[in-house]
Every structure is written in structure tokens, then in C-alpha cells.
């Protein structure tokens, strides 16, 4: 199993700090409805870096990929179907 080197960890750390500054910087601009997706997007890039490198997913066996992926997939189910309720509550009433 290949292991990341210390230098790789320092590199990832530097990237994370840059992304931190980016997300703070971006928040100074008025993005309206885009502010949540942009914030979530940058956070997700950081999350992926943490997952792949600090948590070794990149160097792990496929089963670990599956388990990590399953967690987020199931979270997507929770979000998706629940929001299917909240986002459609204001839709026009069904004919009856």
C-alpha cells in the first residue's frame, strides 16, 4: 500500500489554507442565492482533500472507497427526498 509522504501532507495543508482564505474572501461579495452553493462548493473541495489525503482514502482499498461513498450517497438520499417536500410546498395545488 503506497503511503503519502510528509511533504504531501504539507502540500495538502497549504492548499487547505489557501481555500480557507478563498472562502473568507469570496464571502465579501454579494452573491445572492449563490452564496450557499459557492460556500458548500469550496468546503467540499476542502473536504475531498481531507478525505483523500489526510484520511488516506486515495491509498485505501476499494471497499473503503465504497464505505466512504456510501455515507455521502445516503446523505444525498436524506437531503434529496426531504427537500422534495420542502421545495415543493409552495407549488400550485394539484387539481382535484
Amino acid at each position, binding site marked *: 500500500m503506497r503511503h503519502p509522504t510528509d511533504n504531501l501532507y504539507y502540500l495538502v495543508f497549504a492548499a487547505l489554507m489557501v481555500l480557507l482564505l478563498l472562502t473568507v474572501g469570496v464571502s465579501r461579495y454579494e452573491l445572492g442565492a449563490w452564496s450557499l452553493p459557492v460556500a458548500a462548493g469550496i468546503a467540499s473541495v476542502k473536504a475531498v482533500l481531507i478525505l483523500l489525503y489526510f484520511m488516506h482514502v486515495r491509498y485505501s482499498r476499494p471497499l473503503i472507497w465504497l464505505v466512504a461513498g456510501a*455515507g455521502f450517497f445516503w446523505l444525498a438520499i436524506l437531503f434529496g427526498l426531504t427537500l*422534495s417536500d420542502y421545495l*415543493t410546498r409552495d407549488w400550485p395545488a394539484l387539481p382535484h
Partner: protein
Amino acid sequence: MNLPAAARPPRNYLNASYSLHTWLFTLDHKRIAILYLLTITFFFVIGGVAATIVRLELMTPAGDLVESETYNKLFTIHGITMIFFFLIPSIPTVLGNFLVPLMLGARDLAFPRLNLLSYYLFAFGGLLTLWAILAGGVDTGWTFYTPYSSTYSNTYVMTTAVGVFITGFSSILTGLNFIVTTHMMRAPGQTWFRLPLFIWSMYATSLIMVLATPVVTLAILLVGLERLFGIGIFDPALGGDPLLFQHLFWFYSHPAVYIMILPAMGVVSELVACFSRRRPFGYAFIGFSSFAIAVLSFLVWGHHMFVSGQSPYAGLVFSMLSFLVAIPSAVKVFNWTATLYKASISYNTPMLYALGFIGLFTVGGLTGLFLATLAIDRHVHDTYFIVAHFHYIMVGGTVMAYLGGIHFWWPKMTGRMYPEGWARFSAVLIFAGFNLTFFPQFILGYLGMPRRYHVYPEEWQVLNVMSSAGASILAFGYFFPITYLTWSLWYGAPAPPNPFGHTGLEWQTPSPPPTYNFDRVPIVEEEAYNFDPDDTQRKAREEQELPVG
């Protein structure tokens, strides 16, 4: 008694040591299974007592036995104990804990200490809930809907919530243990498609336990925090949404019903195979259907919320997905039926339970399709139609399969045979009592009788009396196995390693197995369910002089 050395029973997991200390601090998955068996039976009795009082009250239209507040507490206690402290643990923690390592050819589960922790979390959570019951009870319904549970109820909601919260971790850890064991500790040659179908079911169940339970844990935690500190996520007065609780609650509680049925289906697959002397028809389909059920079960929870104020568009989506989840279950029923077709069937007690399961689960499952239909659910939601539907599945399904499994593996677990005559009689009695109890409830629900009410119009009394009469037969029926199984521990015939002639690694060990299961790690070279119709089974039966079919 002092037997000569040759006649003394060999060292097995039961007689390896007798001290209480070695039982309470055991790391042996088989002993932990027995601890669970005793504990869940205790809770089954408590839940049964609550149900008895409920059915007694319902024999008359007036609310003359108990007050309405007490009645609310009774059905709540019945629901909570039966669901969280009997049904959800039942097959996984008793049969699963005992059999999973044996069937895989392993010496124990992957994390024996976590297994023991699971048991103590379960017992502690159960004790807390028991304390809540004795101190005055809970009246929110097992569903804890907000804002009643979070703000208005004056009963022991917090204690019960903490009890269920703690028990949830037991479930998570058990599922985690099973998944890791199945991936990592299969014996050499034990490929996925050589596994018994019980393992497929337990694995699928474990997926649900691990992925769904945390969400209800969160929901209960939030209810507790709202009650204690007024952190109002679910309180409309503070800007919250009561429906959010329902989403979080049902995200777990719908898959939870599949935690209750998937292991039962796994048991039935084993019983049908053994007593038809056949490899289950469509083995791979049955296996994959377990996964399909596990995944699809997460997509349908909104069908519990059709009339709660959920968006009707979400209702449409959930309705359609609910129809979809019936398909893999139907696949199993078709395959079991095909396995039975023109097979040489023996009607031993476990098979009677399995056949009963197939019939009753089919009724329960089909009525589920009625409920998935928005237009019908509108009328029968919160009526006895729903009550009948889920009891057909949970009692007619899970409990029957649980009893069938307990009987089937009883010789392996205890080294004793149960009395076949009494057992068959009890199975038939339970089947009859069950149908008399719950079929009238379909009719009552369709006629409009609401659930969770202790009074009803006079014209429904006949059906209610039938249901209560059935319940008394059912209770009587359950009394028998508890008695003769206990009796068999001292007076039952000693069991051979494989009394029913089934395939699978657990039957290659003595009855009961030694503490470390296998002297040498077995090597699997055969496909699953490799029944030899000619010699082996017939010889095994002749040796033990068991009654034939």
C-alpha cells in the same frame, strides 16, 4: 450426577464454565446471543401484557377498563417495547449473533468486545425505558410526534427517549460488527455466492442498522434538547417545523421495519431450503433482492406522512417509490414458492412457521400496496387497517420466522431437541390465534375505526370481540413454546450435530458447539445448499429415528 468420563457431555460453550462472571463478561458471541435471548423474551412479555390490557379494554365500546390517559400509555408502551426492545433486536441479536460466525467459518465476530458492549447498551437502554414505564409511563405513541413529545406531554418522555437513544447505539454496533465480519472473516473458499442466504439477509439488515439508526438517534436527541432546554427546531412557536421531526424519524423508522423483516426472510430461506431438500430457486435473485430491499427501503419513508401536511408532490414521489420496494419482496415470495414446487416437503415445526410466514407476509405485503396508494391511504391512515397491516408483517411475519428459527437452531444452541408434537400444535394454535386477532382489524379499519382510541361505536363491537378472542388464543399459543423450550433444556433428547440434515457450516460442529467453534478453520469447497437427495439426509434421519415429514 456423576457420569463416567465417556458419558459426560463434551466441553462446549455452555458448560465451559458456569460462573456468573464468565457469563456477564463473556466475549463469546454464542453466550452473548443467549443473554440477548433472555432479555428480549423479558421485554416481549412486557409488551404482551400491555397488549393484553389494550385488547381487554377494546372488548367493550365504552372506555370502562382504563382511562384514556392510561390507554395512551398502554399502546405507547406496547409499541416501544415490542419494536425497539423485541422485534428490532430479535433475529439479529439472537440468531445473528449465534450463527453469523458459525456460518462463515469464523471463531467469533470481528469485534467481540464491541459485541458485549452492544448487549450492555441494549440492556441499559431497556432498563431505563422500563423505569419510565414503572414510574408512570409515556403517552406519545411510539412515534414521539412533536410538538406533543417535545413540549406538551407530561409523561416520562425524557427517560424513554434516553433509553431508546442508548439502545440505538447497540443496534449500530451490532450491524457494524456483522458487516466487518462478513467482509473480513469468511473461511477459505467461502465466496459470496456460497454463503447461506441468512448471511445475505443479515448483511443487508446490518446496512440498514448502520445507515438509518443515526438519524433517529439525532431526532430523539433533538426532542430531548427541546424538552429540556427549549431549543425549538420542531416548535412552530419558535420558528421550527414539526414535520422536520417526522422526516428525521421516519427516515429511520421505515427502514427499521425492514430491519425487522429482512432477517426473518433470511430464516425462511433456510427453513424452506432445508425442509424441501432443495437449493432455493433463484439463489442469486434472493440474495440480491435483500440488497435491493435494503437500498429501496430508504426511499419510501414519506408514505407515513401522506396526510401530515407534506407536499403532495413529495407524496407522489414517495407513493411511486413505495410500489417499487414491493418488488424485491415479491421476488422472494415467488422464489420460495418455486422452491417448494414439487419438492419433497417435511412438515416439521420450523417448516410450519415458514409456511405460515409466506402466507401471512404476503397478505401484509399486499395490503402495503393498498397503503402506498395515496387515495386509499387518505381514508385508512390512522385506522385499524394500518394496525392490521403492520401486525401481519411483524407478527405474522417476523415473530413466526423468529419462532421457526428458534426451533430450527434450538438443537444447535442448546444441545437438546424440542418436543415435536407440542411444537407443531403450538405453531398451528399461534397461526389460528393470529388470524382471528388481526383479520377483523382490516375490516374495522376499512369501516373507519381509528387507532389509538379506547372507545368506539357499538356496531363495531362484534369484530373487536373477535379480535380480542383471537388475542387470547395467541397469548396462550405463545405460552407453549416458552414452556416446552425451557422444559427441553433439562428433559429434551440430546441433539446430534445435524438433526434436520441441513447444509451449512454451523451443522458441521457439535450441538452445542465448542467455545471456539471450529478446531480447524473449515475450508469450503462446495456450493451452498448442496443437498444430496439420496444418502446423507435419509441416513441422518434414520440414525436419529426422527419422524418423517
